[in-house]
């Protein structure tokens, strides 16, 4: 590098690196340290307790149940979202067939893409309010209103979507899927459009049906995007904080009801941190969340690894 460049480089990096270190990296590192203490948060005094917090975590039934709920989300949210998004993306990009025999998208594909994507730009807070109204447990809720009108549900005994222990996780999952499908549809569409047309046309001449061209051509060539989608949806499933804390009943604070049936790791953590004041314990939960996220990423990438197809 020439003279004067070092000063320039340092000058440009100084503020961004400093901010990033102070507010992101240093807290990440501190969490690991604090997770080994019995810190309450009010004062700077705490004792080093070794792995006690982690030992307590494995006996904390509420936390273990929350981990289980996260695992359920981890299985169902990606599967449902990706399947729906793939289905719609294939419809939009290859659903129509022109008279000449070529493959093209259905009419109005651009409009659908704009519309489907819209929920993605809404904040989860808006979604929480919206679906709280949709799931109202009387005739004023959109779902119960519909079911009562069509006679499927008795008006005096509507479905308690968010208060049924067996229902609440599914009700939350619907919100995530509703929110995410449009985004992954656009993601898959972009990947599909980069597949050269002549591959499809060659297959078509060879007499491939729509199903065959999807499973033999589209899906293998899309595998990278599906994998990415899986990891991202996994991260969503590990979080879930806004929806659970705002939509389900309060157990003291930060949702999780009925009776912890919808608690997830993030809500348990926030309750321990800001409501019970158990900062050290909450840090241990943060570390467990990190480890699970890393395991998830590695497992997903390994399990779905295939030979990369280039075209």
């Amino acid at each position, binding site marked *: 590098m020439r003279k004067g460049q070092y000063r320039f480089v340092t000058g440009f990096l100084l503020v961004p690196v400093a*901010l990033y270190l102070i*507010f992101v990296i240093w807290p990440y590192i501190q969490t690991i340290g*604090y997770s080994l203490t019995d810190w309450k948060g009010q004062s700077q005094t705490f004792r080093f307790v070794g792995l006690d917090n982690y030992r307590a975590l494995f006996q904390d039934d509420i936390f273990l149940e929350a981990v289980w709920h996260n695992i359920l989300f981890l299985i169902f949210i990606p599967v449902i979202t990706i399947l729906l998004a793939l289905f719609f993306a294939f419809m939009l990009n290859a659903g*129509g067939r022109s008279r000449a025999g070529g493959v093209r998208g*259905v009419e*109005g594909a651009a409009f659908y893409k704009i519309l*489907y994507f819209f929920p993605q730009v809404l904040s989860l807070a808006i979604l929480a309010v*919206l679906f709280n109204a949709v799931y109202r447990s009387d005739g004023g809720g959109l779902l119960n209103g519909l079911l009562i009108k069509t006679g499927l549900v008795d008006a005096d005994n509507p479905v308690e979507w968010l208060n049924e222990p067996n229902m609440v996780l599914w009700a939350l999952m619907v919100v995530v899927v509703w929110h995410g499908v449009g985004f992954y549809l656009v993601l898959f569409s972009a990947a599909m459009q980069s597949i050269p047309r002549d591959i499809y046309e060659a297959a078509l001449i060879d007499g*491939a049906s729509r199903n065959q061209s999807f499973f033999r051509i589209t899906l293998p060539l899309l595998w990278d995007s599906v994998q990415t989608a899986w990891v991202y949806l996994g991260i969503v499933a590990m979080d879930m*904080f806004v929806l659970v804390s705002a939509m389900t009943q309060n157990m003291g604070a930060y949702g999780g009801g009925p009776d912890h049936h919808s608690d997830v790791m993030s809500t348990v953590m926030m309750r321990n941190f800001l409501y019970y004041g158990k900062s050290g314990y909450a840090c241990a939960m943060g570390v467990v969340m990190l480890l699970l996220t890393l395991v998830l990423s590695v497992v997903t990438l390994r399990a779905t690894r295939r030979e990369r197809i280039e075209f």
Partner: protein
Amino acid sequence: MSTPIKETAPAPAGRPVARTPLPAGGRRGEGVVLNAFSHGFLALWALLIVLPLLWLVLSSFKTDAQIGGSAFGWPRHWSLDVFARAWGKGIGDYFLNTVIVLVFSVPLTMLLGSMAAYVLARYPFPGSRLLYYFFVAGAMFPVFLALVPLFFMVKRLDMLNTYQGLVLVYIAYSMPFTVFFMHAFFRTLPTAVFEAAVLDGASHTRTFFQVMLPMAKPGLISVGIFNTLGQWNQFILPTVLMQPQSGSDPERYVLTQGLIQLNQQQGYAADLPVLFAGVTIAMIPMLVVYLSFQRQVQAGLTSATLK
């Protein structure tokens, strides 16, 4: 969009596709049925997106009693009063707080992020690769990992429940994506222009601001929209950092936080039309930004995910 397209080897891997040509008539029939089928599903999902949103906006014109009674009544009075009431009941303040924070955090994120990305992309120095990965790695970790120490860090800086505290934290947490995206962008810019500027005697700083940054405008727009959406919708960071610390402390809730607050108060003092009007108010800027920039929004978010 990120996959390199090669001219050669058009055949997909695996077995060759089965050669069972369908009779021409059969194929046309399949096309018609499948088209109706696919249009049906596409339209159904479109309805599932639009209906709940429209229903909610419509509900803000109803009275409390109407909302509780049945989901399908039409509003009796089409009066915009409820929006004024919602604005006065806190939504206005929350909206303003969000705007104040974003007016500072988004431009600063763009500036600082671009500066770091530019230097890392175009000035090879020992450790620059490492520093780049260090920035990008931040996107991998759950924010919950940092929350507890972050709260005390901001507290120690005496910036809890202040705009500047939230602005700084937003900038820091937007760094990974901004650096990653702009890094890729600055790499693709031609070197010739840069060299010409240097030959003309422009300083490094001047080259950056007057030559490189204007050339990176398309990238800046994408990242700018992404950061605006992300920071506008942020919930967990303000929840932890923007709580009044004492009785005399002013309430500086941002919009998302305020909406959730209102939503949770419904149990005590029901004023649902106000809540729904608040959601409508919060939705409108997003709708406007999205519809004006939907191409960039979709492209920006997708390419951010693909790498």
